[in-house]
């Protein structure tokens, strides 16, 4: 097993880098879209709420593999030929945005209404309230479920091997078919995924401890 790791560490490292690039960009982009959706879900306008709800239902209710195939094979039908890597990032972004919107929505609901009323009283603009009061606190409040989502996306990124993005999973498939040692190769892949996920969990626990201060009192 260690031979596999030693013999192939440059390709494995490259695969892992791609896995990280894809999942982290999807998480970051998904955060922007997810936060926007969360505000749309709590909008004053019924149409906006309804549209955001429909989006969320679709992206939460169908398998991510299917979404990936849909984006990758369906877009060319409309004349949009996108290479596998952007298609992968796009799908994971659209998917995680739906899950993150729900996480953020619960965070928004937990911010004491009094703060927002007070901010409105002192004449803060609608957008300023969101940017300076709601969003920073929502991140602190939702850190644990957000970490779960990051780990989920990192694991789901193994699916993009199906549309031939050479990330960690596909790299392992290639090594396995070359060395005829599937068990050892996939164990190495499993350990690499596990290492990254444990690291992420630790970082999140650290952040959680250090961001406790200044949290909204009920």
């Amino acid at each position: 097993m260690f031979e596999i790791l030693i013999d192939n560490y440059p390709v494995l490292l490259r695969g892992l880098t791609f896995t990280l690039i894809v999942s982290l960009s999807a998480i970051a982009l998904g955060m922007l879209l997810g936060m926007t959706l969360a505000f749309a879900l709590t909008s004053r306008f019924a149409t906006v709420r309804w549209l955001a709800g429909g989006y969320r239902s679709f992206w939460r209710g169908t398998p991510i593999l299917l979404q990936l195939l849909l984006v990758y094979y369906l877009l060319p039908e409309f004349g949009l030929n996108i290479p596998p890597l952007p298609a992968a990032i796009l799908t994971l972004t659209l998917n995680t945005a739906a899950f993150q919107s729900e996480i953020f929505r619960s965070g928004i609901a937990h911010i004491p209404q009094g703060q927002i009323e007070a901010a409105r009283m002192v004449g803060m603009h609608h957008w300023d309230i969101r940017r300076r009061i709601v969003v920073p606190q929502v991140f602190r409040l939702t850190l644990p479920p957000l970490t779960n989502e990051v780990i989920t996306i990192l694991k789901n990124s193994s699916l993009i091997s199906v549309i031939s993005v050479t990330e960690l999973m596909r790299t392992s498939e290639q090594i396995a078919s070359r060395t005829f040692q599937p068990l050892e190769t996939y164990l190495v892949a499993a350990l690499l995924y596990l290492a990254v996920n444990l690291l992420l969990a630790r970082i999140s626990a650290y952040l959680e401890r250090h961001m406790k201060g200044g949290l909204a009192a009920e």
Partner: protein
Amino acid sequence: MFDFQLLFEMRGLILQGLWNTVWICFLGCLVALGLGLVLASLRLSSPRLVGPLVATYIELCRGIPLLVILFLLYYGGPSIGLRLSAEIAGLVGIGLYGAGYFAEIYRGGFLSIPQGQLEAARMLGISRLNILRRIQIPQMLQLIVPPSTNQLIILVKESALLSVISVDDLTKNATAMVNETFAVIEPYITVALLYWLIIETIARGGYALEKRLAQRSRMPTPSSSDTAGATHATS
């Protein structure tokens, strides 16, 4: 634009995929639910040796992608003499992977039961198994139904991965239809709707069960749970 004729011609593939997805998910989820209960009880009841082992197993389930687990079972298995058909490898994979998640859900449920009740039951000489069956499980059911429903839905969606290890499930047959007919929209949309149908059924079932448990439960009402807390505090 949407060619129903084509779908009708391809009904065999769709139905076969639906059937495979349904039976593999059903049995896989049963394994996951059962094994999860065993893992959770082990983790809570034996803190010395088995507990940490089980905790490690749960960490592994939550930290490794299902796709990797499936590949390990299906492609890696034969090198240690474990030869499984794709369907069985998928079933076992879903079972082992889901068990880790269910174990955590059950653990939350177990921990929510006041310690005083268990002590009282042990005092009265009720056997360990009977405590589990008559005291712990009935009370935790109400609490664990919503997260378990969620987890079941996640497992059904993740089962689309079985297509990668060549199980003829909904996703694989949809891709087969695409390759055969060059129609992309019809197969994938149909399959998406079918997944949604399965998931909606599970979600509705979960709600119904939740409602029924809420009506029938003899969960302590707020006043009686106060006394339970008080007993616990004085004990």
